[in-house]
């Protein structure tokens, strides 16, 4: 019982990280109907932004919520700028081009960032600074609850809450939903579509930055290729939940995180990555639009 609880906590924190990154995929897809493959690299760059911010400001010598907050804010700003730049220089010129062109560009941007990071930061792994001191906060049924896991959960929940508020209770959110529903009608009604898209990239990239910091805190190893696998998993989580759906991305992330941990525990780590993609195939076969996705029929 104690172990199962421990595994569930591990799965929950892994899953909430997947969810944060999956949100970036799902939001861009919802608005632009494109898969932003460069998103996983925004996440990777976020880890390095946080690393250098903490190093430059010498924050690891004074771990605590103040330091965490500073790193979070700086990283979110830098990630947003990166996301904006990608949107402006890579995707905006192609807005009227066929979907496939944008997709290939996204892969190109992703590869560019991976190798750019290797060149600038070096290819060897770096040790992420200690931003939160590790301690056992309390114990539930014999399973110790650690400060990192609580931090990860709290930060993810708050981010998701803010996102939900933004999308469903603000004017910007209304505009986003309108653009997602039909971009040309929205623009006829006076919504600045380009600006809504820019905001979408800002939000998605900030979430990726948050995810990167959480991974850094928990696992402490960052390197330029760290985005590839986690990006793919987050993408699976987004599809699993129904791409374009915010609730779907969160649910998908949590399901994937918990089931991966359980596979490692009760099966073998060899099957872990296979499981993620098996789930993807299964969902696509049974419910092609995902758990929360609406089946939209293409009208001619």
């Amino acid at each position, binding site marked *: 019982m104690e*172990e199962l609880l*421990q*595994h569930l906590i*591990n799965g929950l924190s*892994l899953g909430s990280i997947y969810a944060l990154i999956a949100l970036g995929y799902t939001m861009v897809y919802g608005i632009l109907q494109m898969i932003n493959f460069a998103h996983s690299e925004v996440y990777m760059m976020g880890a390095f932004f946080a690393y250098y911010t903490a190093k430059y400001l010498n924050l690891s010598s004074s771990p605590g919520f103040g330091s965490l907050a500073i790193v979070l804010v700086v990283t979110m700003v830098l990630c947003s700028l990166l996301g904006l730049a990608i949107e402006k220089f890579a995707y905006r010129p192609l807005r009227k081009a066929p979907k496939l062109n944008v997709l290939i560009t996204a892969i190109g941007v992703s590869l560019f960032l991976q190798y750019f990071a*290797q060149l600038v930061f*070096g*290819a*060897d*792994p770096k*040790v992420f600074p200690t931003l939160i001191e*590790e301690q056992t906060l309390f114990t539930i049924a014999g399973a*110790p609850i*650690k400060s990192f896991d609580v931090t990860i959960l709290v930060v993810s929940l708050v981010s998701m809450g803010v996102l939900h508020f933004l999308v469903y209770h603000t004017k910007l959110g209304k505009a986003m939903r309108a653009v997602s529903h039909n971009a040309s009608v929205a623009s006829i009604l006076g919504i600045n579509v380009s600006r809504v898209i820019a905001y979408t990239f800002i939000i998605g990239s900030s979430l990726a930055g948050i995810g990167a910091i959480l*991974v850094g805190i*928990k*696992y*402490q*190893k960052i*390197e330029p*290729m*760290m985005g590839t*696998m986690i990006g793919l998993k987050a993408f699976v989580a987004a599809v699993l939940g129904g791409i374009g759906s915010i609730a779907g991305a969160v649910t998908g992330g949590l399901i994937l995180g918990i089931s991966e*941990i359980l596979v*490692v*525990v009760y099966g*073998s*780590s*060899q099957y*872990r*990555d296979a499981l993620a993609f098996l789930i993807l195939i299964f969902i696509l076969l049974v419910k092609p639009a995902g758990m929360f996705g609406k089946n939209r029929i293409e009208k001619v």
Partner: protein
Amino acid sequence: MKKFMIINLIMAATFIFSSCTKKEDVILIGEYGSLTGDDATFGISTNKGIKMAFDEINAKGGIKGKKIKLVTEDNQGKNEETAKVVNRLITQEKIVALIGEVASSRSLIAAPIAQKHGIPMVSPSSTNPEVTQKGDNIFRVCFIDPFQGLVMAKFAIENLKAKKAAIFRKNGDAYSEGLANVFVAEFKKMGGEIVKDIQYQPKDIDFNAQLAEIKAKKPEVIFIPGYYSDAGNIAKQAKKIDLKAILLGGDGWDSPKLHEIGGDAINGQYFSNHYTTESTDPVVVEFIKKFKARYNDEVPDGLAALGYDAAKIVAEAIERAAEVKPNLIRDEIAKTKDFAGVTGKISMNAERNAVKSAVVVQVDGEKRKYVTTISP
């Protein structure tokens, strides 16, 4: 016009002459290694040792009146890059001997290429037995995995008095699997019990699930035959879940970064290594002194020492060979006997492996405390 022609002639002559001397006057030796990538300190340390060895030889006038020129290629710690750079070294740079690699899986890729082109290859620190089985041109100056697995199993039973061990191996890695298999066999043979044998995947950063499984079985020691970046991370995550077993590893732990990654969690853990900085052997003392002087007080790790020994053995073989030809150099490397290296007396056996003893050291921050020597 005439003046121009003369100048041209002179220029052409110097060009031809200089290009001639370039080829004739140096002995080209190739090195491939991970100067960047996941286990970059392996390649960098080895490279430092090799460079130091060749510079010493060149300072004394080189070999047969020729200077040694080292051509180093970075494979970024990747298998696919290894084949590319080794091919380049052999076919384009025309090297006469090849030194590399640390990681067994990459040496296993380079070995058949060197064998095919008849270039002698000396691996400084690949411990997987298969490496030298790839052909009669492939040598190594370190001990092999069965021995390292045996050393740690013996150490766990005899010195630590452990009865229950868990294995945490890296899936699909020639080095890790090799050590783990031998440890399992030897530990059982000596009366111990393997309570859990679990694996992680390359590139993994989350080891919590496996560690929780290991913890439930309550082992006294955990054998983690991975490389330093994984081992450091595993130690850290093990500490977080209060897993109190003693951690054991192989020479893959030997890196200045082990402590940076593992922090306090890695202190007090043990691994088997090729040499100890606490040795009083004059060869070792001299080597450490020279290395520190050259690389701003850095203490050489085992890989730097092995790189140094490998380079010296190749250089001596070239010196003994009648001509600087790959096949003659190969024959001389094979005849290496009682070479007084930093990592002990080195003799090549019939399988082209070095026969020597191993030391067990305990991690203490950047330092490595000598614990015991275990002979074959």
